[in-house]
């Protein structure tokens, strides 16, 4: 394995070990998402039918806000004892650090999404299509997009005083395309529509992922380096 991949693996390892030890990021993300759903259903007084129409939207609003919690934590956890400084002084390219963090964030977000989806199915009485594999593709493409931009922005906001709020403020407008495409593609996949109907959305997601991973990879240098 190249040193490049090794470093990425070590960063992933570190985040996973800490998560396995404290089990708080994933648990709290799932829990938070449940409460968001609950509050939505009260505030929008949704009956089952109305809920069905906006299900995909609700799923992605919940995922986005939940993901933001994970993203925020992934860098704020580095503030304990100024560990972030140590990362900044590490003799590896900033891009490596970026990819390591993206991998960890993607892993957390994806696991949480997989745990949450059944709850949506039950609470809103969705008729699930047989073939979930397309849905998984949609989830992973959209999550990758959120993680790619989100990781960069989490690093960017971590030293800002009002960090908890700056992350959503900066990130959400940026990922509007991801949100729209994810909602539309999820609708299609949930309805069992033929792939051709929502394929453009998947392509949009894929393009977004590639473009923003590359751009963020370069930009990370300027975010992390003094």
């Amino acid at each position, binding site marked *: 394995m190249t040193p490049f991949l090794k470093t990425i693996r070590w960063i992933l390892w570190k985040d996973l070990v800490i998560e396995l030890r404290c*089990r*708080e990021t994933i648990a709290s993300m799932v829990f938070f998402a449940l409460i968001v759903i*609950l509050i939505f259903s009260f505030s929008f*007084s*949704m009956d*089952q039918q109305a809920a069905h129409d906006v299900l995909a939207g609700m799923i992605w609003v919940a995922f986005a806000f939940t993901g933001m919690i994970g993203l925020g934590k992934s860098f704020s956890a580095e503030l304990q004892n100024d560990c972030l400084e140590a990362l900044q002084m590490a003799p590896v390219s900033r891009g490596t650090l970026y990819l390591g963090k993206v991998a960890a964030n993607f892993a957390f977000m994806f696991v949480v999404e997989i745990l949450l989806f059944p709850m949506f199915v*039950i609470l809103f009485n969705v008729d699930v299509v047989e073939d979930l594999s397309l849905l998984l593709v949609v989830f992973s493409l959209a999550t990758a997009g959120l993680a790619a931009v989100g990781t960069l922005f989490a690093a960017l906001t971590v030293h800002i005083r009002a960090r908890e709020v700056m992350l959503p403020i900066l990130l959400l407008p940026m990922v509007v395309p991801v949100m729209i495409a994810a909602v539309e593609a999820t609708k299609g996949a949930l309805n069992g529509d033929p792939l051709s109907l929502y394929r453009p959305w998947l392509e949009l997601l894929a393009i977004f992922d590639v473009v923003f991973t590359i751009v963020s990879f370069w930009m990370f240098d300027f975010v992390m380096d003094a």
Partner: protein
Amino acid sequence: MTIHRVIRHVQRYQGWVGGGAALCLTVGLYLGLLGSPPDYYQGEVVRIMYIHVPLAHTALLGYTVLAGGSAWYLWKRDPIIDNMCHAVAALSACFTALALLTGMIWGKPTWDTWWTWDARLTSFTVLLLILLGYLMVRTVVDDLDKAARYGAVLAILGFVDLPIIHFSVEWWRTLHQPQSISMRGVSIASGLLAPLVVMSVGMSLLFSYMLMIRTQLLYLNRLLDAKKGRLLHQFHMSKADS
């Protein structure tokens, strides 16, 4: 190190409670499953009620105990009370979750849906969330003392909130949906009542029994921790002196 007197009492009575639970549940299940007629409307499906309803009652009872215990803990600051509260919370959460689960299993054939935003279901869900929040605080806070205090505060606030939540959800429901689906107004035939009562008593006894066991467990765990610390201390002292 003497065993706490509460624990000694618990150990004396837990056999009786466990026996009572077994007895009531056996009788109740017999009456419910075999000894009572099927429901006029729902047929055999109704029998799940004998589990579902007692579970729900017991969970509520548990929450009441939790709130009382928490207030008591804040007053006395006796760790054993905290152990009891912690145990009650975990059990109540389990019972609440099971009530919801059995309800869902019941709801599928009866209402043809797993879930509906009915007032009682919703307020029970909120209750479950509060209990899970309580348990989460207890795992996230390292300091035992702090965890106990924070937990107690949460439990008391939640208990005060419960009736308000219930009323608000109920009003909200009546405002938004005609009562097409509701658990209200099912008059229970007297033939169904007896097994229900027996099952409820049995379930409460089972809850108490599990509570006794779990409280002891948590208490002994705490003792063990203290003991470990003391042994470590002695070990190091002896090493230092030699």
